[in-house]
């Protein structure tokens, strides 16, 4: 397969050790990432299930809230314009907190109340009780929706994180590790071949030396037979040396 070349490195014993260490590192990394991906996927499925439940529940809560709105409208008349005109400060706000799952920070929403109800006087003329019920219903709906929003943001963030992690796992498994393995195989074959070459060279040299030695032996014997060779003096034989006199 093209694009899966080996790493360019001079084949030596040390290179082999380095490559082995790298391979080990890549395999460990791949296993860790796989575990992370599994943990994230598990959490993802749990959140998805919760989202579906909450959405169904939300459908019902909204229906009830809309119903109580219709009731209130019937009793108190049309208060929509007054409500819309009297907006100034929100009583319900949300905070974003961070939650951590297997190294991924997920945003979580938490709602809190601030200030007083600006619509306290709205139902004073007619339909006060319906309006109060309506406000409670919608407040309940808002709480549920904030929870749903938290789940949804976690969902989206986890989705991205899982995609990235899986991409990395696949990259290591299908590109990095085969590349290192190929390099390792190449180094081993190069080393083996070098050894064989060395061996072959040594053998050849030995043969040549042997031939040379035989030739020179034969030469020597021929010359001895012809009487041309003077044996050099034997240092170990007992002979009298003349004294050295310095004049």
């Amino acid at each position, binding site marked *: 397969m093209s694009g899966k070349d080996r790493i360019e490195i001079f084949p030596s014993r040390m290179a082999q050790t380095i490559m082995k260490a790298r391979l080990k590192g890549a395999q460990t990394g791949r296993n860790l990432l796989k575990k992370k991906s599994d943990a994230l996927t598990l959490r993802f*499925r749990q959140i*998805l*299930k919760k*989202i*579906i439940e909450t*959405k*169904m529940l*939300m*459908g019902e809560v*909204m*229906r009830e*809230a*809309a119903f109580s*709105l*219709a009731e209130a409208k019937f009793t108190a008349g049309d208060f*929509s314009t007054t*409500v*819309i005109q009297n*907006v*100034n*400060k*929100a*009583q*319900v*706000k*949300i*905070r*974003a*907190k*961070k939650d951590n799952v297997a190294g991924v920070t997920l*945003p979580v*929403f*938490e709602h*809190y*109340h*601030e200030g007083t*109800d*600006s*619509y306290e006087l*709205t139902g004073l003329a007619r339909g006060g009780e319906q*309006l109060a019920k*309506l*406000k409670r*219903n*919608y*407040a309940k*709906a*808002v709480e549920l*929706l*904030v929870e*749903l*929003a*938290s789940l*949804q*943001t*976690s*969902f*989206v*963030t986890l*989705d991205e994180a899982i995609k990235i992690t899986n991409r990395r796992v696949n990259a290591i498994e299908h590109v990095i590790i085969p590349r290192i393995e190929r390099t390792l195989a190449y180094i081993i074959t190069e080393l083996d071949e070098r050894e064989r070459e060395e061996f072959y060279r040594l053998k050849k040299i030995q043969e040549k030396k042997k031939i040379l030695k035989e030739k020179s032996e034969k030469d020597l014997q021929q010359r001895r037979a012809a009487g041309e060779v003077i044996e050099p003096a034997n240092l170990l034989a007992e002979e009298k040396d003349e004294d050295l006199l310095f004049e």
Partner: protein
Amino acid sequence: MAGRGKLIAVIGDEDTVTGFLLGGIGELNKNRHPNFLVVEKDTTLNEIEDTFRQFLNRDDIGIILINQYIAEMVRHALDAHQRSIPAVLEIPSKEHPYDATKDSILRRAKGMFTAEDLR
């Protein structure tokens, strides 16, 4: 990290917006811009899209609630929004009950749950 409080924005028909304002989420910011939009029969698609994009760009809005039938109209703007905050939630309106198959979030995980989970 508990930052400064974020708001909940609403884009919906008159009843939905009234209800949520009575729930206490409505606010006008410094430039007198509200965090809600009442969509009537004569509201143009461009207006809805613009407001939606404005809400997305405002950093004091954490959640955007939008009626599902309006979400259908500006589906392309919704699908283009990939960030996790602000969260976009589709809520049913009085005439159009909640339809899980149209929800953009659930469509992303389409293959992961079966029909019986939805029951």
